[in-house]
């Protein structure tokens, strides 16, 4: 699992630039799926036959895309001006290394040296519109020969195992979810499932609409990464979730109220198997569930998420144990739904 997460995190895939990560995932899953296709927005949809047929497959999703940036302009001195794609805290952007475009041109998000910054200025973080990337070009013309307007800009950050079972990488949100899905699709499953690796989640759950409209599931399980703010300067409920304390079961976020019955089901499954779990202590964020839940005739949604510290930065951190527990609980959920769909509608 860790090797797979490492490999997936290394592949670039900013929202709407998912070709490479999609191809990488497709290679892994093709031998295990009965039908694989890519749709108009870029979702990768794979059907896996299970022991039991189902009129409506169980939909399981994780998003392929990561947050990043896009080239807006190449200025007259050869520096690259850029904009964020997805939600990025601009306080985590300066002084980071990035790779631009298909040729992965290295760049440094530059800033005026500390010595040249006044005491007043050091308290303020510039707008991203005022930031720039240095690709070492001699002038505008040379820069334009290396990168283009509209090019993908991705964080350059390696994979590190450290501490007591912790990992650091870019894009743990949501390559962890993707890795979990790859593990699940390789197993013998008790029921027909539709595995959807969605595109453009970070820009507003954009892929999930069309995938759901096409598949029309009754139940959907979202596998995600979610904020963990369990650091000393944050107290109590503002910690949201804690890395290492188990996967997070979805109750409510800004985009959706998760199906109560499915939440209770996950809670029981976890308790019965001794899988640690937690819930978000602060209502924030959103997942593909916000698009899935109200598409077409409606879907009962559930979510299992891994807590990720410093989410949406180049150095996100998660616990390996949480990742394993996510897969374990998701598998238990699939078996449970196969046995008893617990259809809500009458």
């Amino acid at each position: 699992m860790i090797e797979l997460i490492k490999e997936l995190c290394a592949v670039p895939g900013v929202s709407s630039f998912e070709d490479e990560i999609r191809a990488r995932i497709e290679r892994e899953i093709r031998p295990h799926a009965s039908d694989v296709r890519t749709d108009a927005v870029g979702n990768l949809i794979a059907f896996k036959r299970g022991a039991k047929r189902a009129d409506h497959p169980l939909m399981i999703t994780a998003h392929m895309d990561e947050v990043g940036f896009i080239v807006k302009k190449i200025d007259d001195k050869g520096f690259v001006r850029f904009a964020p794609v997805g939600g990025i805290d601009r306080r985590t952007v300066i002084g980071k290394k990035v790779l631009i475009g298909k040729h992965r041109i290295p760049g440094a998000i530059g800033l005026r040296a500390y010595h040249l910054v006044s005491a007043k200025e050091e308290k303020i973080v510039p707008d991203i519109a005022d930031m720039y990337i240095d690709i070492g070009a001699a002038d505008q013309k040379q820069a334009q020969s290396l990168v283009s307007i509209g090019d993908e800009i991705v964080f350059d950050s390696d994979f590190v195992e450290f501490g007591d079972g912790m990992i650091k990488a870019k894009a743990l949100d949501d390559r962890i979810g993707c890795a979990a899905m790859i593990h699940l699709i390789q197993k013998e499953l008790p029921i027909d499932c539709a595995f959807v690796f969605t595109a453009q989640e970070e820009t507003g759950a954009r892929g999930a609409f069309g995938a759901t409209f096409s598949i029309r599931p009754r139940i959907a399980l979202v596998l995600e990464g979610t904020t963990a703010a369990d650091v000393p300067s944050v107290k109590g409920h503002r910690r949201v979730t804690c890395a290492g304390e188990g996967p997070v079961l979805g109750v409510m976020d800004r985009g959706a109220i998760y199906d109560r019955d499915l939440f209770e089901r996950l809670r029981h499954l976890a308790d019965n198997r001794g899988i640690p779990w937690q819930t978000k202590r602060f209502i924030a964020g959103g997942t593909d569930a916000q698009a899935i839940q109200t598409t077409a005739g409606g879907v009962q949604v559930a979510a299992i998420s891994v807590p990720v510290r410093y989410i949406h930065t180049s150095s996100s951190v998660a616990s390996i144990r949480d990742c394993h527990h996510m897969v374990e609980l998701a598998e238990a959920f699939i078996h449970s739904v196969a046995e008893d769909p617990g259809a809500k509608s009458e």
Partner: protein
Amino acid sequence: MSNLPTLLTSLSSIPGPSGFEHDVARRAVELMRPLTDEACVDGFGNACGILRGTQPGALRIVIAAHLDEIGFIATGVEQGFLRFSTIGSVDPRMLPGREVTVMTDPPIPGVITCLPPHVLSEEEMDLAFPREDLFIDVGFSHEETVTRIPVGTPAVYRAGCFPLGEDLFCGKAMDDRACFCAGLLALEMLQNAALPHDVVLLGTTREETNFGGAKTGTFALDPDVCLALDVTHAETPDGGPKNTDCVLGGGPAVGYGPNMTPRIRDALIAAANAENIDIQREVMPGKSYTDAWEMQVSREGIPTAILSLPTRYMHTPMETISLSDLRAMADLLVAFLKQPHGEEVAE
């Protein structure tokens, strides 16, 4: 038809804020009728014109430009003056002393109030009026106003278009009726083209509020490719390269970003290059705030692109465009539509 200033003036002058586009939609249908096989106002209020292709079962390409404009709506009467709220995103600094047309039948002219300098303090003079402190003066007594103008009556900026210099044109609702005109010019040029695929020009409603027309119109048409035409910001002395991507006269802008499917965008660029049409590029990193945002996620998702017309002073009564940019946009549409398009849609 090809007299662009006349066409622009005619569409611009019809009051039609979001939700009240009936008259604009009717005029749009009249203009499309001679250029299409079928033109009508659809169930939601969008103006829809279809130029059928020669092959049955060929692709359906929908080009959308919105017909609605921003405006106002009466919410009450106070001492004969109309209390009002806004429809769409209205810059409050445009309001004091502004002439408006209240959409009663017949229309009633009005002026948005402003306080004269001598009753304001020095600090107050520097600030824009909050919208809640403004009223529309219609010149009637309280009873007359209550009778003539029920709560819920819409209003728009007073109409009026004029040329600026040789190439520029200025008036209200260039956003987005200028782009609809580009669509009409394109349909004109395609009259005998005998394309294999269906081309639909969709004059959408409610773009300025909730993109409702694009959402419902696209669902009803179930297209294979969508192209949204809208305006984008052009440089001004106080809005330089940091805030804007384009200049007037530089040609239409092709959009880059998550809301634009690369192969459709690239097809536009290829068409421009083939016909030597100057284009600009515009990067939209997230929500594009155009009809394309809804079109892209309709049903199972649709390949979508955005083509923009550079505009100064957006959302004011003085929106300013370049006529040569507009003609170039129409030329580019024609070149794009003449392409085969089979591969962009195939998986």
